[in-house]
């Protein structure tokens, strides 16, 4: 049974479909109880901080709105230049908001179940992000739920580049708090605190989305590649809301 899970088949997919149809709404109710309780106590204990953060966020919103207006003009100019140079049109993306309804803390696998499925337009292999950065990708979908493989999972891998020096590599999960960047040769220009973002090569994420920050750089045992440890930008311990990506042409 476990070996066939490597390639999903009709029988297990049907079993999951049937069980998730009943289980997911129940899990959603239980999760919403604890989310509301947590938010209630958070509000009580941090009213002062909320006011200060509100003021800070208002200022940031004004700044971002001004930036947005400036960038809108640049997007138009970029599009005109692309057409002139006959570049392929950049894919536009839609976001499907989703909530995590189930997550097993006893499992070695970093996976979560969300409350969006095929009826909402979610497809297997879709990228999943948060406002902070990349969170994972969808690996299984039923009609009303989807299983998300989170970035720290050992099966997870994303094509990435170091933002400053544009050195390409692959970011993989290590099953713990850190991510690892692979296939970076020794001697390449990589420093601590460099930001690592998604590469244009990735087909499931738009380029430029933040994966994390480089926490340590060491020589690997074989001496040919660097062993790079990355601190993920997303806090996976408190993650509860996600955005599932969907190309606009679908």
């Amino acid at each position, binding site marked *: 049974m*476990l070996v066939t899970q490597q390639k999903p088949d009709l029988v297990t997919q049907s079993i999951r479909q049937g069980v998730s149809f009943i289980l997911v709404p129940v899990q959603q109710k239980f999760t919403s109880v604890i989310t509301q309780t947590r938010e209630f106590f958070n509000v009580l204990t941090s009213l002062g901080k909320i006011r200060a953060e509100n003021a800070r966020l208002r200022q940031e919103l004004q700044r971002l709105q001004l930036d947005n207006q400036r960038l809108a003009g640049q997007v138009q100019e970029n599009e005109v230049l692309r057409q002139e140079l006959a570049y392929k049109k950049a894919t536009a993306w839609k976001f499907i908001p989703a909530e995590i309804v189930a997550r097993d*803390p006893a499992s070695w*696998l970093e996976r979560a179940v969300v409350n969006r499925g095929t009826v909402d337009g979610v497809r297997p292999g879709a990228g999943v992000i948060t406002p902070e950065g990349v969170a994972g990708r969808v690996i299984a979908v039923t009609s009303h739920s989807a299983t998300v493989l989170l970035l720290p999972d050992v099966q997870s891998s994303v094509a990435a580049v170091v933002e400053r020096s544009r050195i390409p590599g692959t970011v993989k999960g290590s099953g713990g708090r850190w991510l690892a960047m692979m296939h970076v040769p020794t001697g390449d220009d990589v420093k601590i605190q460099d930001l690592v973002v998604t590469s244009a090569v990735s087909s499931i994420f738009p380029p430029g989305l933040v994966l994390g920050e480089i926490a340590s750089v060491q020589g690997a045992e074989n001496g040919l590649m660097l062993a790079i440890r990355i601190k993920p930008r997303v806090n996976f311990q408190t993650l509860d809301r996600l955005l599932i990506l969907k190309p606009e042409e679908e």
Partner: protein
Amino acid sequence: MEPLLIVALMLLASVLQTTWAYSLNCCGAAPDLVLLLVLFLAMQRQTTLGLWSAFILGLLQDMGGGNPLGLNALVLLAVAYLVSRVRTKLFKENLSAQLVIVVGMTWAYQFGTFYTVNALWHDAHTLGQWASRSLTMSIYNACLGPLFFKGLARLVRGEDVYQHLIATRSKPAPNRWVQRLP
């Protein structure tokens, strides 16, 4: 009534494990309610029921948590089998025995899932990760386990098991020398 209660407890444990248990995460550890229920049923009930309950609970946990189907089912089945082998040799209501079972089986369960995941995904995790995770989870389960077992025993049997046992143990043992005199 009791079978229905056990089924309800199984459903509740699997739903709580995949929803509320993550919010009770502390220092990288979280309670494993499904494992505790498996241990209770394996210790207190006949072997067949314990094994079937473990398998079904594992399947529910796999389906609810997005894990590959059968991962937890097989490991929990193995854990229930181990407990069923020693259940007749244990004084199940003894706190020390319960703690030894909970801590030992948490380590065994974590090793089972660690080994299976590594076998399927080629040495994904290290032994150090297994040891640290097992240690924190076994401490968490050890704190919850005896309370969990006591509550479940009262709920499932519908009587105060512990008071009954204490009452029977407090009666003085009969004096055989007195009885043998004509």
